[in-house]
């Protein structure tokens, strides 16, 4: 008992030592959410999905929204990595560790969400053991593709993350560790290249192709959705990768990443957003004019109920942020506009993912049926928010104990002298 108390005390001190009151409250909330996650996770895994508000019409819910968002936004990792390691834009170096960590967590929790969404989590390996590959080179099922690409890319992210862990101030003292970390950094471009290659597939499939391939559902069917999702991930991902360290810096009241890196990231994001916007407009136009009528539906009729056309309008409004504030130098160089820009960018991507799912499932399949609604149950909320809070906790832990922001360490080191 004494022993337990001691361990608890050590852990408690280790975590909460030297934190401000606000941070403490935030940490309590995050830990509470994580605890809820564990409780409800057990319920869902042992007693099934009946406790969710998903049903035979509204097949997927909060967790798939989480998946789409996480993968879409985690896409910033491969974009940043690619630009840094392949184009050798060294200005991005200060942000890469954070980017890789966020990417890693996004993918990790995508797996977690996917696992919860399976009715038979114990059979998850069937996706690898009996893939629906068909006879061609390319898999028949988009989900098969997601299974494989996601796993491979996740492994790459693990490899990319290892140097960050190895550079821990205790570990790096070991000469072998230092050597491994050094060479891994040097060889990271191969990983970045492979990661980008793989990312293209699963970003496309999970984010878009998966929905675009459902040819009998005019709400989703769109052959170009696959490619649009890749562009979306690049655009929104870079915004997200900028936003996260920025928020961290604000909370820590320290310059974790130099402003010029932020600026560059924002510029990249804004630039890709132009492409994404054009692509999205084209996609809406094509759906409305060609694809929906082909499936016997009127495009605007498919929008209705709780998740009506306002989602599309909101998405368009949010587009304005990155398009204007990130591309025009005058605005971008003002910090507040840059933040608005990247936040709107993230918002636009999240809204589009939400509308894919909520609007897609709520649209009736039969003419005499109305739009359906989806209200996640406590279990779904707890697991979704619990995962997010665990992500934040991991991020915080890395900030505290690992060299997530080399720039910060560098500065502190200078200050000492």
């Amino acid at each position, binding site marked *: 008992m004494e022993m337990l108390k001691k361990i608890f005390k050590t852990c408690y001190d280790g975590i909460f030592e030297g934190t401000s009151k606000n941070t403490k409250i935030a940490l309590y909330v995050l830990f509470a959410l994580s605890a809820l996650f564990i409780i409800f996770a057990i319920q869902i895994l042992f007693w*099934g*999905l*009946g406790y969710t508000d*998903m*049903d*035979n*019409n*509204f*097949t*997927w819910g909060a967790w798939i929204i989480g998946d789409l968002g996480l993968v879409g936004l985690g896409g910033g990792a491969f974009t940043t990595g690619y630009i840094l390691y392949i184009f050798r834009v060294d200005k991005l170096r200060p942000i890469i560790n954070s980017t890789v960590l966020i990417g890693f967590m996004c993918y990790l929790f995508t797996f977690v969400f996917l696992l919860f*969404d*399976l*009715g*038979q989590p114990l*059979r*998850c390996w*069937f*996706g690898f053991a*009996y*893939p*629906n590959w068909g006879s061609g080179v390319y898999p*028949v*099922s*988009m*989900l*098969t593709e*997601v*299974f494989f690409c996601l796993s491979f890319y996740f492994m790459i992210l693990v490899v990319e993350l290892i140097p960050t862990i190895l550079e821990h101030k205790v570990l790096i003292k070991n000469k072998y560790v230092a050597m491994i970390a050094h060479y891994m950094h040097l060889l990271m471009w191969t990983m970045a290249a492979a990661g980008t290659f793989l990312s293209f597939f699963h970003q496309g499939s999970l984010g878009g192709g*998966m929905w675009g*391939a*459902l*040819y*009998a*559902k005019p709400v989703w*069917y769109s052959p170009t959705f696959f490619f649009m999702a890749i562009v979306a991930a690049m655009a929104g991902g870079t915004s997200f990768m900028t936003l996260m360290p920025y928020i961290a810096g604000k909370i820590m009241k320290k310059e974790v990443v130099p402003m010029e890196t932020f600026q560059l990231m924002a510029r990249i994001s804004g630039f890709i957003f132009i492409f994404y916007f054009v692509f999205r407009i084209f996609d809406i136009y094509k759906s409305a004019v060609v*694809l929906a009528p*082909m*499936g*016997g*539906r*009127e495009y605007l*009729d498919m929008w209705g109920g709780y998740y009506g056309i306002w989602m599309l309008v909101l998405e368009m409004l949010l587009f304005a942020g990155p398009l204007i504030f990130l591309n025009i130098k005058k605005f971008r160089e003002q910090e507040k506009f840059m933040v608005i820009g990247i936040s709107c960018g993230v918002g636009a991507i999240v809204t589009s993912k939400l509308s894919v799912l909520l609007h897609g*499932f709520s649209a009736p*399949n*039969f*003419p*005499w049926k109305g739009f*359906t609604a989806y209200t996640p149950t406590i279990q779904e909320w707890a697991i979704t928010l619990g995962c997010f809070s665990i992500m934040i906790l991991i991020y915080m832990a890395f900030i505290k104990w690992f060299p997530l922001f080399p720039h910060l360490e560098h500065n502190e080191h200078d200050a000492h002298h």
Partner: protein
Amino acid sequence: MEEKKIEIKMKRKWGMAIDLDKCTGCGKCSVACNQENNMPIFEDDSDVPKRVAFLELMKVTNDKNAKFPDVKTAYLPKMCMQCEGNDSGKHKADPPCVSVCPAVATDVGDDGVVSQIWSRCIGCRYCQAACPYEARVFNWWKPEYEGSFKKSLNTDVSVASRGTIVKCTFCSHIWKRERDAATAKGILDINAVMYTPACAAICPTGAIVFGDLNDHESEVSKLTTSNRAMRLTNSIDDIKDPEKKKALLNKKQFANPKVYYLTSQSWLRDMMRFKKNS
């Protein structure tokens, strides 16, 4: 001579025609289907979107567009439509649900029936999202059969576990049963064996007709080619110009279901399509 008969090539393509002018909505098909396919039993089955039943007796009214007393009511028994899809050049013919399954748990049989093997199913529900007819159901809860209800379970249909998708397979286990019996009588030709699914067998007005669509003499073929026949929400059927239709079919896959609804009531025909701007 005897050897000639042993023909392994499948000639059958099962299809169904449901005459809505004859359907009185009595619900016998639903009970028969539930009984035949060992549908799970729950104390309160009123959570309709989570209900596990292969055959849904859908009440259709035109009261969205019409006012009393110009309204009409019909019951529309809806099961899996056993879609075929079509060869669009880019993709070979496949039902909407089969191509999406990540674990090959669902497949089109040689007789055109879309099978679903629950023991292979991982429960991702992607096929449900893909199905335009809401024909696939998921075992949200563990299928329960309280007490002595277990005694009324059919041995030909296995009881699925929680967290898997199940669906109507046109009672194809009855076909296997009939094939068995035929073989015992010395009929080895698989194409000589006919069967009737539970819903069609119990229908008191003969509104549900089941048969072979490849056999042009069969009743179901005659019914499905009549001008009363319609397929639910499959809007491509409305395009009469063959050239245009062909072009469309080359552009995109369509569900192409094998269940036909027959009706002479124009309001019901309208209800089976998404009307423009309604």
